């Protein structure tokens, strides 16, 4: 009996490891393959067949992308749009989330409902009217337009996220601060905001990533070469007759870098942030 239960234990833990391994492989394989293609010389790409690593490595694709394409421009555009969106959304969502969490006012439920409603429309359905509106306001073919539209589409979720973080901070802390000598604004700044930093970090990361990888609106609103974001720029590697896989993958790897750096920087906030609002202590 003892032997059997031990066997069962080994089998079940092996099963777990196999499952975890398969999941990690599934998640990591595309990244690995992207890196592999990006360092494969063009003449080996089709001639070598399927290999786990090319026999010869090159960084030529990276050099070409950085020197001979518009990619640095796209990259910079994406960075501008994503950072601006993340900051604007987090600032607005923090204030809105605070108001929804702390104040009772007429129509509060309606505000929440309308915010939720904005999340229910399929994007494809709203594209034509949005294009018309943006065109009338002169917001097509420039980065401002993208910032506006990304902000609009991320603000509802970010507001709910921030509201849940504020809900997790006891009201008494502010009340104690207000008795100690703070105005409401000072209590917010000195007590609540420092405690909400993890939540804000999570919101910034979420919005940044969403804006960074957005393609549909960028494709629709931007025409000029110098206003394109990198996600649209990637498409330029797909020609009418051929796809330049090596350069496209090199560009993709570079596009991953800021996101990775960003998450590494925010990591300590994220772990507490994403769980802090969930459980009230």
């Amino acid at each position, binding site marked *: 009996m003892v032997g059997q239960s031990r066997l069962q234990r080994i089998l079940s833990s092996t099963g777990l490891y196999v499952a975890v391994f398969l999941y990690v492989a599934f998640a990591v394989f595309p990244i690995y393959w992207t890196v592999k293609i990006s360092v494969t010389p063009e003449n080996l790409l089709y001639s070598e067949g399927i290999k786990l690593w090319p026999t010869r490595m090159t960084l030529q694709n990276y050099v070409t992308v950085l020197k001979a394409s518009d990619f640095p421009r796209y990259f910079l555009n994406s960075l501008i749009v994503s950072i601006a969106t993340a900051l604007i959304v987090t600032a607005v969502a923090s204030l809105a989330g605070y108001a929804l969490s702390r104040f009772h006012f007429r129509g509060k439920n309606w505000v929440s409902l309308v915010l939720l409603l904005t999340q229910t429309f399929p994007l494809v359905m709203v594209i034509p009217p949005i294009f018309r509106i943006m065109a009338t306001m002169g917001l097509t073919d420039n980065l401002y337009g993208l910032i506006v539209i990304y902000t609009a589409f991320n603000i509802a979720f970010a507001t709910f996220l921030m509201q849940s973080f504020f809900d997790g901070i006891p009201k008494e*802390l502010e009340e104690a601060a207000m008795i100690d000598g*703070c105005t409401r604004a000072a209590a917010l700044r000195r007590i609540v905001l420092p405690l909400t930093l993890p939540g804000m970090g999570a919101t910034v990361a979420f919005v940044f990533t969403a804006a960074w990888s957005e393609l549909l609106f960028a494709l629709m609103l931007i025409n000029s070469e110098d206003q394109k974001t990198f996600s649209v720029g990637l498409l330029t590697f797909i020609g009418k007759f051929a796809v330049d896989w090596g350069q496209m993958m090199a560009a993709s790897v570079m596009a991953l870098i800021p996101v990775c750096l960003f998450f590494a920087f925010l990591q300590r906030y994220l772990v507490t942030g994403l769980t802090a609002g969930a459980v009230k202590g």
Partner: protein
Amino acid sequence: MASVTLQNVSKVFGPVKVLSGINLTIEDGEFVVLVGPSGCGKSTLLRSIAGLEEVSGGEIRIGDRLVNDIAPRDRDIAMVFQSYALYPHMDVEKNMSFGLMLRKEPADKISKRVNQASGTLGLGALLARLPKQLSGGQRQRVAMGRAIVRDPKVFLFDEPLSNLDAKLRAQMRTEIKALHQSLKTTSVYVTHDQIEAMTMANRIVVMNEGIVRQVGAPLELYDRPANVFVAGFIGSPTMNFVDGVVVSGKKSGVRLKDGSMVEVNARGVREGQAITLGMRPEHLLMSGTGISGEVLVVEPLGMTTQVSVKTADSLLTVMAMERTSVSPSDKVQLSIAPPNVHVFDKSTGNRVD
């Protein structure tokens, strides 16, 4: 230090009247406890004094100053919360000095005050710790420390001991009382625990459903409760209540449903009046005459013995001061000395003397 005066204070939340017509004067240096069941409005009243709730009507004065429209930070009060509400990202020292710092007090004065308070409360070794590194009792002390360093006109306590275990609660109760005796700062203390109220207060304010039911010194409330609510709320185990009708004749008194008579001292009763009698468990004696019943449960507590007796229409609790030999299903008869019987009008619930 200052007095606190409440004049006709009321508070409504939408259609709900939380406080109505509260009149109360808390003298300079007094320790007043607001007590009542949950939802009676005691916390709302305290928060109104603090300025955390706006009152719907009436006037609140601290000293001679009308504070209705004055922000909490300008009322010169300090409050201790049930959840302590320590700032999680500040260490004990910063938590305690935060209020003084905001008031731009000089640094040497701040550190002197903090050292003094932490000495009084035995927090000296903990000044560099964060709240999460403290035990419940220590957090409670820090919350107290944060209040006393400010040297405010009034201390407000909102059920500060509710989150502590029974032993620590009794200890902190004594400490808070000792602290008040040395500081003599006007204090308003909210609790639902009538033992805290009895032991700590100079005066107790018993509240129910948004109104003040009685104000008085602890023993005054115990000995002469103004109505059935106060009689039932103050005292543990609670007072026994039995309904009856006033009769006069050869033997005058109150006749209970089972026909037995209880003699009372109250002069204000009239014949035929429906009455609720209140009898404290320690005043009921198991003797040969009086209300007859059957012993249901015997609970020895050491110093006393609590006996539950089932009578014709009610269950009475008797607190026997001496060791008793009764056991369940014994037949007993309960008597009580007339001065110890509390008489309340059945329809109004008010005391009749």
